[in-house]
């Protein structure tokens, strides 16, 4: 068993110093929900664990119309699920949060940790992509902002360099007449890993056509992915059944699913198409028809295999 030392910084600067000192021997953890599981299997073998839980100031959710939504690195998935602002303005993210594991894991796991873990199946990730999240990344030499689309580089791999820490997310304010939804497909209704997850966030313009469309797919490629071909098919078009079905077909075509214990590859592709269609229909309907109650979001967010 590979032992490690436990370090507890009390500021981001102190954490950066620890990462600099210990280099690749250090592992940064937030909620730590992935860490111990992967350490027990021997998959992660750090010599030092740097735990961010006692760094103050990272647990804030802020919103204003100009800057949009700000999510600190220690904001938990449950904080997001319970946020009235998220439920009202970022419905796909509210759905992704409520589809995530169960209450007792959501109370620990952080949204930023879900990003940095970079699982292709992370349940908040398609919604964050569809809400166009931007990531604040700090290091001892300063800070940079990276679009979430550029963060995922492979299963479990991000564009963060050694010694960098993601401290905040920003989600721009949705345009007027926007709607969105995330749907997770899994065998079990809670505590399960998605076989497929799809988020769609759309805006409808004054002419009744889609003015913006973002579709993101989870668990059907080495990373969570946007589906630009499907998005482009819809922008400027009215939300007809035929247009939505065609976009869903394009999204499924763009997927590069693998077969594993949760699904065959072709099954994943088929489900990706179905979920894209369902999320787009719901997003388009609620963009003009008003927000969905959270009780309905949580009913829709997980659609199990049986």
């Amino acid at each position, binding site marked *: *068993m590979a*032992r*490690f*030392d*436990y370090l*507890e910084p009390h500021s981001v600067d102190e954490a950066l110093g620890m990462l600099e000192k210990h280099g690749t021997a250090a592992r940064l*953890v937030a*909620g*730590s*929900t992935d*860490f*111990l*599981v992967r*350490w*027990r299997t021997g998959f992660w073998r750090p010599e030092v*664990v740097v*735990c961010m*839980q*006692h760094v103050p100031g990272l647990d804030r959710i802020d919103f204003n119309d100009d800057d949009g939504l700000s999510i600190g690195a220690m904001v938990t998935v*449950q904080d997001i699920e319970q946020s009235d602002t998220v439920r009202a303005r970022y419905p796909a993210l509210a759905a992704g949060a*409520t589809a995530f*594991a*169960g*209450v*007792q*894991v959501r*109370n*620990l796991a952080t949204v930023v940790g879900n990003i940095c873990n970079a699982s292709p199946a992370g349940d908040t990730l398609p919604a964050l992509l569809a809400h166009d999240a931007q990531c604040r990344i700090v290091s001892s030499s300063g800070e940079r902002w990276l679009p979430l689309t550029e963060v995922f580089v492979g299963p479990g791999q991000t564009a963060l360099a050694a010694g960098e820490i993601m401290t905040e997310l920003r989600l721009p304010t949705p345009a007027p007449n926007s709607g969105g939804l995330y749907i997770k497909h899994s065998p079990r*209704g*809670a*505590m399960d890993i998605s076989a497929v997850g799809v988020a769609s966030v759309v805006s409808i313009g004054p002419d009744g056509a889609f003015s913006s469309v973002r579709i993101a797919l989870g668990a059907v490629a080495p990373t969570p992915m946007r589906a630009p071909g499907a998005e482009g098919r819809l922008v400027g078009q009215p939300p007809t059944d035929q247009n939505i079905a065609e976009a869903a077909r394009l999204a499924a075509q763009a997927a590069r699913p693998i077969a594993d214990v949760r699904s065959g590859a072709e099954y994943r592709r088929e489900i990706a198409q179905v979920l894209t269609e369902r999320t787009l229909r719901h997003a388009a309907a609620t963009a003009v028809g008003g927000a969905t109650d959270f*009780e309905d979001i*949580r009913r829709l967010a997980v659609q199990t295999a049986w």
Partner: protein
Amino acid sequence: MKQPLTLTINGESRLMLVEPYYSLLDCLRDEAQLTGAKKGCDEGDCGACTVLMDGKPVTSCLILAHSAHDCDITTIEGLATVDGLSPVQKAFVEHGGLQCGFCIPGLIMSATGFLQANPDPTEEDVRFAIGGNLCRCTGYARVVEAVMAAAQEMREGR
């Protein structure tokens, strides 16, 4: 190497020597000798290890014990008082919401944390709240009945 750790468990401050890799669950069971929280899967899937941390249900198998030093931990052993079982415990007994019992401490802790924040839930709210607790014996109907009954008792102040 073991390091000193002071945890507040069921209202009592306890000083222990704990390895850095110990989960909160290992710490509770092996160091504090509180074996009510169960090690079902040890990977955050079954909910049998659920305890309350600052009033919120959490899977104690996923928590680095040392990270919990400022937190208030409540385990199933901390629910009963000199007056007897807690309303949730009583309701589980009265409604027969158990069979082998292994998952029950976790279910009761989930329900307790949930009802503290949501005193007047719908049955659907309860089902979502206990979604992270797996029972392999009996199913969930009586568990849900018990939680609904406990909610009513607590609202009526019994």
